[in-house]
C-alpha cells in the first residue's frame, strides 16, 4: 500500500474541486447537450453543471493549456505633441490552473508541445513565454482510462491507459470514487485536503486491476519505427497520397480535436487607435495555411496537406525530437472524421503492413 495515495469519493468530488477553486482556476469535463447530440467538453468547473467522467471527452484538453484564441499584447496608437506614438502592453499572466479528469493521452499531448514551445528542440531556441507561463502554473490530474474504444491506439505511440507521463496526479476509478496517486511534487501538494481519505488494500488492488484490464483491452501495437523513413520515401508518390486523401474533405476537424496539433496563426484586431495582437489555432488542412502573398502555394492539392499532417507527426517531428512520435493515439481524428480517414492506416500503408495489423477500411462516402 502506498501511504501517499489518497481516495476521493464521488460524493465529495465536487466539494474537493470547489475547495481547489480557491487556489486554482479548475477545469473539468462535463456534458453539453442532450442524448445523441451531447458532447463531452473540458470547461471551467461549475458544480451545478456537473461532471462527466464516464464518457471520453469529445474534444482534447489542448485548449486548457493553449487557448483557441489568446491575446499576445495590446497596442495603442496615438499622437503625442503631433508625432505618432505607439504603446505595447503584454497580456497579463495567466492564473494558476488545475485540470481534473483529462485522459492520459491528453496529458501526453502537452509533452509533444514542450520541446517546440520551450525551444529546446528547435534551432530557433525561442521560448514561447505564453505557453510556458501556463504550463508552469497548471496542475494536471489525469484520469486513467477504463474503457478502450476501437479508435484508441495510445499503445502504438508509447502511451497507455494509465500512463503518468505529463501527469501531476493519476486518478483511477475504484468503487464509489477515485484512487489518487501523486506523480509530481505539485501533484502531491494538491492532495493535502481533509476531504480526501486514506486508501485501503482493496482500493489499491482494484485500481491496479482496472489499469491492467484496460491495457490488455488494447489491440497489439505494431512497431512504427519505420514510419520516419517510410513516409519520406513516399513523399513524391502522388498516387499513394491521392489514394490516401481521396476521402478527406479538408475540413480540419482532425487538427482542432488533436491534442498534439500545435500550429497557430497570428493576427491583429483593431478598433480606431487601439487593438490587440491575437494568436489563434490554425490548421494545416486549410489551403490558406501556406498561401503566399504572390499567390504561390506549396500545398495546393489536399493530398499535400494531409501528407504534411501525417508526415509531421510520424516522420518530421520524430526526426527532430529523438524519435518521439507527435501523436498520442487518442483516436479523436479517426472517431470524428466525417469521411472516416484513419491516420493509423495511412502510416501502416506507408510502411506496408496494414494487412498484418488488421485495420479495415471504413467507408462513409
Amino acid at each position, binding site marked *: 500500500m502506498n501511504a501517499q495515495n489518497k481516495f476521493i469519493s464521488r460524493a465529495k468530488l465536487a466539494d474537493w474541486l470547489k475547495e481547489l477553486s480557491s487556489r486554482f482556476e479548475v477545469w473539468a469535463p462535463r456534458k453539453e447537450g442532450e442524448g445523441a447530440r451531447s458532447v463531452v467538453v473540458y470547461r471551467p468547473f461549475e458544480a451545478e453543471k456537473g461532471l462527466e467522467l464516464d464518457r471520453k471527452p469529445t474534444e482534447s484538453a489542448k485548449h486548457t493549456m493553449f487557448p483557441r484564441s489568446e491575446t499576445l499584447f495590446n497596442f495603442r496608437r496615438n499622437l503625442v505633441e503631433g508625432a*505618432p506614438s505607439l504603446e505595447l502592453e503584454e497580456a497579463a499572466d495567466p492564473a494558476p490552473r488545475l485540470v481534473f479528469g483529462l485522459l492520459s493521452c491528453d496529458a501526453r499531448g502537452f*509533452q509533444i508541445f514542450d520541446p517546440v514551445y520551450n525551444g529546446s528542440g528547435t534551432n530557433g531556441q525561442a521560448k514561447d513565454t505564453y505557453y510556458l507561463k501556463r504550463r508552469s502554473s497548471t496542475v494536471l490530474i489525469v484520469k486513467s482510462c477504463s474503457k478502450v474504444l476501437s479508435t484508441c491506439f495510445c499503445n502504438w505511440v508509447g502511451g497507455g491507459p494509465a500512463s*503518468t507521463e505529463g501527469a501531476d496526479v493519476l486518478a483511477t476509478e475504484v468503487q464509489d470514487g477515485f484512487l489518487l496517486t501523486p506523480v*509530481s511534487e505539485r501533484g502531491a501538494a494538491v492532495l493535502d485536503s481533509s476531504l480526501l481519505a486514506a486508501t485501503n488494500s482493496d482500493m489499491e488492488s482494484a485500481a491496479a486491476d482496472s489499469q491492467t484490464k484496460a491495457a490488455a483491452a488494447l489491440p497489439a501495437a505494431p512497431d512504427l519505427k519505420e514510419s520516419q523513413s517510410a513516409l519520406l520515401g513516399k513523399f513524391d508518390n502522388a498516387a499513394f497520397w491521392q489514394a490516401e486523401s481521396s476521402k478527406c474533405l479538408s475540413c480540419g476537424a482532425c487538427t482542432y480535436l488533436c491534442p498534439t496539433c500545435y*500550429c497557430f496563426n497570428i493576427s*491583429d484586431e483593431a478598433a480606431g487607435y487601439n487593438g490587440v495582437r491575437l494568436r489563434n489555432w490554425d490548421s494545416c488542412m486549410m489551403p490558406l495555411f501556406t498561401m503566399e502573398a504572390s499567390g504561390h502555394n506549396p500545398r495546393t492539392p489536399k493530398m499535400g496537406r494531409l501528407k504534411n499532417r501525417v508526415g509531421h507527426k510520424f516522420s518530421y517531428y520524430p526526426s527532430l525530437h529523438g524519435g518521439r512520435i507527435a501523436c498520442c493515439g487518442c483516436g479523436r481524428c479517426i472517431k470524428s472524421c466525417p469521411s472516416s480517414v484513419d491516420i493509423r492506416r495511412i502510416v501502416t500503408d506507408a510502411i506496408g503492413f496494414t494487412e498484418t495489423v488488421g485495420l479495415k477500411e471504413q467507408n462513409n462516402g
Partner: protein
Amino acid sequence: MANENATPTPTYEPGTRNPYMPYVATVVEVVTETHNIKTFRLRLDGEGVHEAFDHKPGQTGQLSVFGVGESTFVINSPPTRKDKYIQFSCMRAGEVTTALHGLQAGDKIGVRAPMGNSFDYDAMKGKDIFFIGGGIGMAPMRTLLLYMLDNRKDYGKISLLYGAKSPEDLSFAEDREDWLKRDDMNTYLTIDKEAPGWEHKVGLIPHVLEAIGPSPENCVAITCGPPIMIKFVLQALNKLGFKPDQIVTTLEKRMKCGIGICGRCNIGGKYVCIDGPVFTFEQLSQMPNEL
C-alpha cells in the same frame, strides 16, 4: 510507472524575453524604388536599443503595421552600415505590404528581428563571388554584397548580375550607380526587352549569365529571384560547371511566428524561418520536394 524517457515539464523562468513582442521603431525614410517596391529605413526606439541591435547578412525580420498584421522581410542593409538605420525593401503584394507602402517618415512600426540563419560569409572568404539577382530578389543579396564590399580584402573577384523586366523595375538606383563605377567589382545589369536609352545588357538573366560565363573555379554563386528564374539560373550554372554546394539561395515561405513554432514554413523537418532562409542547392536536394 512514470516513463523515464519523458521530458520534464518545462518551466517559465521569470525575465525570459517574449519573442512575440516587437521592438517599436520609427520610420526614418521611405525610398520609392519602383512602382511596387519601397525601401523602409528604420531606427529602433528607446535608449541604446538601436545601437545594441546586431544581425548577420541574410537574416530576416518581421515588420508589424499594428492593426493590419505582420510579415517577414530580409534585413537588406549590412551590419557594417547600421549607424543611422536598418533597412527593409518590400514589394507590395498583400495586405501588410499595402499598409507598409502607406507609411511615411515619422510613423511607428514594429520590428521583430533578427531571425533565421545567415549567409556563410566566413566560409566564402578568399573565394570569388558571383551574385545573380532578379527583381526583388536583389534585396537579400544587397546585404551580403555591401558587407563584402565593406570587407573587400577578404574576398576574391566580386561580380553582380542584376536584372528586371524593364529599367523602371530595377531597385537601388544609388547603389547601382556606385556599383557600376567601382573598379573592385564587375556589375552587369540586364532587362528583358530593349528600352530607349538603356546602355546595358538585354536578355533574360539565365541567358546573360551563360554569355558572361563565370568560371566555377573557387567561386560561389549566390542567386535570388522568382522561382522560374531560379530554375533556369540553376540549369545555366550547371552547364558552367557549378556544383550544388557552390550555389546558395534564400527561400521564401508564408511565415507567422518566425521562431520555428507556428508550423507553416516547414519543408519536411526543416523550418525556413529558423533553419533558413539561406540554403545551398546541395542542402535543398536533400530536402523533400515541396517548394
